[in-house]
């Protein structure tokens, strides 16, 4: 095979509340940043393909066809543009399809943009709209939501492996500490373990959302967008880019049963394991080669469970490593250096691209002081769609 695909430009809005703005404008902002980062803004009409990742613009913003709207906001007609949807993994799926466009030889330069505006609707409506990815009769109609499944998964994990609520709170402390230094993060405020777990008021301050998950174990509702410029590293055009490309070494995805109750083993995230396996194979790497990772912590339990499925830790042992600080910025294997979804935020369609932007920033050495991983070589991200029924894994390399 061997067309090498590299990332030569990155863009990212400050995640948070952008609900007064139009979705296509927010995406265009990130896209423009990425093009400027690549030094390619004036030449944007030479882009061969635009791929947009978005989950639910029709429901949140009452707008559809966002890929097409984006083209006109960027004044870059007649560049082809299509939307990729994969629930909360839309971003990484957009990267995967963009990669495939370059790797197939049909496109030399591809712009990938992921974005979502969720805060035009109330919190209750957002919970309902996100829940539409569940099976409509067997899950959605029952009143179930993503946090409900997060809670049930956490309870099983706690019963089997001895994880405590305090362990989950440690993740919030770590991720908020990282996010506080990330200029793009939604929440840039550290939290203390005493306040959210140990102290006498912690049970109320860190109130339950879906037991045993608490507020500081579930991510916020956010707006935002992120973008990448992909290039065929061997094409003559690749020489025009100022920054050395960060190569996509592996990208793969897998699916699992739609209904969570039909998973073969309720504590396994098979789609995560398979996607990671394929990505490792493509990259000719293993878990031991990964320097740092962005793992989809929409619920803190997922940071732990995903880290085990991709092979970083033995099943049921990841939280022991967290207790020892192994996943801190200066630890053996930093995880969610960006602050993760917990602190950085989770505009669902943007997250997968946002994770990739963090991989690039770290690999380029461009992360803020205090959260730059030392000499990273390979970064991995896992973007979790549905409740684990459609997962995309990405590995980036600094060659």
């Amino acid at each position: 095979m061997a067309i090498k695909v590299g990332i030569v430009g990155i863009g990212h809005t400050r995640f948070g509340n952008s609900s007064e703005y139009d979705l296509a404008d927010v995406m265009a902002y990130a896209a423009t940043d990425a093009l400027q980062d690549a030094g390619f803004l004036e030449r944007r009409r030479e882009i061969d393909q635009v791929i947009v990742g978005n989950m639910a613009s029709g429901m949140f913003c009452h707008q559809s066809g966002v890929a097409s709207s984006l083209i006109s906001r960027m004044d870059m007609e007649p560049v082809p543009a299509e939307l990729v949807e994969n629930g909360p993994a839309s971003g990484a799926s957009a990267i995967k399809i963009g990669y495939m466009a370059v790797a197939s030889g049909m496109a030399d330069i591809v712009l990938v943009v992921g974005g979502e505006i969720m805060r035009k609707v109330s919190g209750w409506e957002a919970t309902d709209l996100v829940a539409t990815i569940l099976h409509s009769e067997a899950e959605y109609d029952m009143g179930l939501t993503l946090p409900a499944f997060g809670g049930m998964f956490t309870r099983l994990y706690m019963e089997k492996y001895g994880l405590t609520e305090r362990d989950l709170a440690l993740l919030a402390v770590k991720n908020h500490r990282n996010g506080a230094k990330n200029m793009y993060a939604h929440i840039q405020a550290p939290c203390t373990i005493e306040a959210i777990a140990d102290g006498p008021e912690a049970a109320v301050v860190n109130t339950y959302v879906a037991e045993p998950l608490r507020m500081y174990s579930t991510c916020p509702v956010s707006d935002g967008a992120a973008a990448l410029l992909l290039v065929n590293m061997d094409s003559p055009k690749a020489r025009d880019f100022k920054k050395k490309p960060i190569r996509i070494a592996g990208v793969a995805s897998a699916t699992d049963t739609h209904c969570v109750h039909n998973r073969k083993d309720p504590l396994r995230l098979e789609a995560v394991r398979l996607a990671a396996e394929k990505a490792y194979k493509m990259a000719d790497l293993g878990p031991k080669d990964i320097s740092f990772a962005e793992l989809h912590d929409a619920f803190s339990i997922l940071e732990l469970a995903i880290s085990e499925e991709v092979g970083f830790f033995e099943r049921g042992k990841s939280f022991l490593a967290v207790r020892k600080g192994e996943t801190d910025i200066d630890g053996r294997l930093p995880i969610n250096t960006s602050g993760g979804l917990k602190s950085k935020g989770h505009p669902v369609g943007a997250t997968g691209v946002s994770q990739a932007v963090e991989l690039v920033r770290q690999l380029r050495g461009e992360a803020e002081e205090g959260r730059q991983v030392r000499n990273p070589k390979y970064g991995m991200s896992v973007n979790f769609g549905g409740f684990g029924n459609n997962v995309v894994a990405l590995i980036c390399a600094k060659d």
Partner: protein
Amino acid sequence: MIDFSMYGAKVPTIKAYKCLTCGTVYYPAPMVCGKCSTRRDPVTGKGWETFDLEGSCELLTWTRVWNLPEGYTKKYLLFGIVQFENGLRASGQLEVEDPRIGMKLNATVKESDERPGNPVNVFVFRE
């Protein structure tokens, strides 16, 4: 002739499906049998049989959700995943004082209009 029973008292049920070719049971219904690839035609139902999913089951996991979606006015709701004796599993609401993993429950069905749209059938797992 018209089937007048359709205007009678409605007892809400939730159906599970059985492939008559290989005997595998499913909930919810697939369009193709995972085991023997027999198609299911939702119009004629040929080659498949439905049966009510209800009765005794075991609680596999549960949660109490405080942040309910739009349309719900309760302070919280309990949800659980159960396994029936025939091996099928289901998710639904839980009405149990003190839920414990492994406890034996009875699966019943109620009609609910909490979610937007037409009323739907919902599992309620009770002691």
